[in-house]
């Protein structure tokens, strides 16, 4: 039976469960895209990838200690993210340890530990959601968490956008006009970690880094103005997440993977096409 894109969209919008998923895509996509400007300009994609993998053992530990619930997952993820993220920031400021090496070992070991705990707890099905996302299983509480975190993230990054831009461009100049560079960095990484946690439900901890990098990276291909990466990334993130979800509905793909795949494809197209145009003009 042929199934048109339009009727897929209608079906999708008619079901409460997918309405919620779409709403989640809109909020999470926008917040992630907005913050991706910070990640891209600071060139911290790999570090943030490490943090996102570090969420899994945190969740596993919290579930083991407090039982399986929304709140234990949330608390475990936040605690693990703060531990790995702020810990690595501290490490890089305080010592000469080769950060890539240390993080490479720490996060794979942590991730492996998380997998072991989860397999012992017998909640394999949940594991899939945490790894790759479960948009269709969003509860009201999940939606509220996503809303609260997305709002907070966008507000903080908007309110301090001037300081953030100057700090990203040249931390010494930022410090010279009185911007508290260190505490601002810690604040922003805390916001990044919260955002990672909120996108856990949508795309899972392995794919979340794609959602948190691709939007602004794509805008950066076309814009020579760093301040445009924030809103541009937010819009692209929201549109990409929603379209990815509808696409997944239509093609029966896993939703989180469809979103990240779509955003990655858009980036690649943006990367290839203009340079071809440029070459043909010469």
């Amino acid at each position, binding site marked *: 039976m042929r199934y048109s894109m339009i009727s897929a969209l209608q079906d999708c919008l008619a079901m409460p469960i997918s309405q919620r998923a779409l709403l989640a895509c809109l909020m999470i996509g926008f917040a992630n895209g907005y913050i991706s400007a910070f990640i891209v*300009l600071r060139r911290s994609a790999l570090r943030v990838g490490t943090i996102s993998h570090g969420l899994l053992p945190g969740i596993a530990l919290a579930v083991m200690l407090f039982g399986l619930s929304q709140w234990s997952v949330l608390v475990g993820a936040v605690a693990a993210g703060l531990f790995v993220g702020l810990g690595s920031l501290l490490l890089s400021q305080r010592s000469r340890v080769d950060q890539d090496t240390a993080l490479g070992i720490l996060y794979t070991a942590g991730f492996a530990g998380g997998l072991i705990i989860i397999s012992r707890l017998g909640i394999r099905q949940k594991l899939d959601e945490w790894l790759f996302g479960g948009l269709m299983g969003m509860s009201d509480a999940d939606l509220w968490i996503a809303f609260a975190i997305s709002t907070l993230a966008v507000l903080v990054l908007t*309110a*301090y*956008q*001037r*300081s953030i*831009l*100057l700090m*990203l*461009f*040249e931390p*010494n*100049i930022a*410090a*010279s*006009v*009185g911007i508290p560079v260190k505490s601002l960095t810690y604040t922003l990484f805390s916001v990044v970690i919260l955002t990672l946690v909120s996108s856990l439900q949508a795309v899972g901890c392995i794919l979340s880094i794609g959602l948190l990098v691709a939007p602004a990276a794509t805008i*950066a291909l076309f*814009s*020579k*103005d*760093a*301040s445009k*990466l924030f809103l541009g990334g937010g819009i692209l993130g929201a549109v990409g997440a929603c379209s990815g979800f509808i696409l997944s509905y239509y093609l029966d793909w896993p939703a989180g993977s469809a979103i990240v795949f779509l955003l990655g494809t858009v980036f690649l197209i943006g990367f290839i096409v203009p340079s071809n145009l440029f070459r043909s003009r010469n």
Partner: protein
Amino acid sequence: MTKREDHLCWGADKPCPGFGKHRLEVSNLTITYGQTLAVDRLSFRAECGARVALLGPNGAGKSSLLKALAGVLRPKVGTVLWREAPIRAALHEIAYLPQRGEIDWSFPVTVRGLVEMGRFAQLGNWRRFRKHDRDVVARAIDAMEMSNLKERPIAELSGGQQQRAFIARALAQEAHVLLLDEPFAGLDKPAQETLGALLEQLAGEGRLLIASHHDLETASGLFDEALLLNQQVIASGSINEVLSEPHLTTAYGEPSSRCATR
């Protein structure tokens, strides 16, 4: 010490009567990185309208001193006063220009965007960017003769243009004191001369310019005063006094062994 004479100070429409020139006063400043001593009990003073060269061999503490004056480093020992108040109270009056090598030139920002960042020091995070701010930015870009380059990304500028773009940022900040880390390094001769003339003009308008400088040959043509240091102050005063042979020998060693240290 203070000359009670009127002078046309930067930013004022008429001479500031009777107060003498605005003064930067550094006393007993000591900067350390962990166990390493960068600057040792350094004291000096400078007044607005002067171009002061910081001279000394590599590792003498020139960059550290500039960072401390700019408020980037917070030394535990010593004081820095600007207009008789702690300098941290007037950070927006001080503009810091890092070495060109320390700047990420691939950062996506145009000349205009960079100069607009200069207004952030005045506006903070929340005050609106108004017509006045746009005017100040346009004037700063004009003063550095960059109007035709203002929409160009900083990555596509020449060395001299990059330096001027950063000075335009400082002008947009309406800074009274400019701290420049090796502004002439890596510039070709014509660009050096253009920049030299611009700095002379800025000082003539009543700003205080303090710049580290590694080339002793060109120093006397580009600066009025100098501070020669090697962790401690070796000499300070007018550029020609400071550049005398005994002082240079103290700082750099015997003339025959100097090539390597410059």
